């Protein structure tokens, strides 16, 4: 399948600071991609590069087969909902739809109006008087009705209460099922990512730590506990993500494509949250010494 997002050696520098560097990605179409990482890791920078709001300092990025924001056709292929789902507070809900209709060649007015009706929004209401959840739903409506190939959402639910969050995600998943839409969304909520995404990118300290199909990622990471031992003595093919030791015991979190047969280890499976946290807490120098992007392929 073709790639919806492809980056090679992608980097972005603001003055002296690299917000993103050495980023290699190859995300297949039709996926819902979760982008996770601590604040300031470079998530928004990556999403803005993908939407064409920023231009790269280094490397290349290709989205839906073209350079981001390269022309009218390319702009129509990608929808972008920025952080905190911004809307024009002085404009009414209906004004937003008119705006969307005029600016987007593939605009699906029936979908937009149907969604507004189902959401129970008053078309005459000004966006500034909507609740946070309603505003997010309005922004999502514009993103869906644009009928893009890829919808990019930067922390769409961060400011929403649990009910509004669930409703937003329900509608997003329905749109994915209905329109065969690819989605990239950033989030701090691993539980949301586990439900709604099937592809994961972990970004820490301006670098991609790991990227791949979520079920594959979870399946190839294990926790090993056993008598104290030097992690360097592990067989090739077992990559240590984190290691901790007491005077007698060693606990390792490893990535490996094959089963662990060493009987001195107790091997336990991991959840998605364990895997994400391991990459987030791993010491920064461990990251710089290894290959920057670890693509898990099967």
């Amino acid at each position: 399948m073709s790639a919806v997002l492809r980056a090679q050696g992608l980097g972005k520098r603001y003055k002296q600071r690299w917000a993103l560097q050495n980023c290699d990605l190859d995300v297949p179409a039709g996926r819902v991609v979760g982008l996770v990482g601590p604040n300031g890791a470079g998530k928004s920078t990556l999403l803005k590069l993908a939407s064409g709001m920023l231009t790269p300092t280094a490397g290349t990025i290709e989205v839906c087969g073209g350079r981001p924001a390269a022309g009218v056709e390319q702009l129509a292929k990608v929808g972008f909902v920025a952080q905190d789902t911004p809307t024009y507070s002085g404009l009414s809900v209906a004004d937003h739809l008119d705006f969307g209709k005029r600016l987007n060649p593939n605009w699906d007015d029936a979908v937009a109006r149907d969604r507004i009706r189902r959401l129970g929004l008053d078309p005459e209401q000004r966006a500034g008087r909507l609740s946070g959840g309603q505003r997010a739903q309005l922004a999502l409506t514009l993103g869906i009705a644009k009928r893009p190939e890829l919808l990019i959402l930067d922390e769409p639910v961060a400011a929403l209460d649990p009910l509004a969050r669930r409703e937003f995600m329900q509608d997003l998943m329905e749109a994915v099922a209905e329109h065969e839409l690819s989605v990239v969304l950033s989030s701090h909520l691993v539980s949301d990512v586990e439900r709604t995404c099937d592809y994961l990118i972990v970004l820490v300290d301006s670098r991609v730590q790991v990227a791949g199909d979520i079920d594959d990622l979870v399946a190839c990471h294990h926790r090993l506990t056993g008598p104290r031992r030097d992690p360097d003595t592990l067989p090739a093919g077992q990559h240590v993500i984190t290691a901790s030791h007491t005077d007698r015991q060693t606990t390792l979190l490893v990535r490996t494509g094959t089963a662990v047969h060493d009987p001195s280890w107790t091997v336990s499976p991991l959840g998605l949250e364990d895997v994400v946290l391991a990459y987030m807490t791993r010491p920064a120098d461990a990251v710089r010494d290894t290959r920057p992007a670890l693509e898990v392929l099967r």
Partner: protein
Amino acid sequence: MIEFHLNSRSGLSPYQQLVQQVRHALRLGLLEEGDRLPTVKDVAKQMAVNPNTVLKAYRELEHDGLVAARPGVGTFVTRTLADGTLAAHGPLRKDLQRWLTKARLAGLDDESIEALFTSTFRDAAGEDVA
């Protein structure tokens, strides 16, 4: 029709949970041959879960010969799992109860019993794989 639930603390991925819930319903006779599973879109919407996850679960069930997809119509149950083993449940339960009594007499508390069962079960499962 079956209604799915996701438990974030089950230790199983969402797709495994969907497969397990269908298998469970088939085993208990809650789903029978000819029953239709909810559409991928309905499950995605109702549970706020990725449609690819639902598809993956349905494909695995199809691969196991439990359901069949009829394009444009839906996914239907083709085989049930409520089988002859139900009769064996009674005696097995009695054996287990006897074993539990023995374990308690030996001084094991609930936690130790559970740990012993889980690790034995896992070892046995591991031997099957190897």
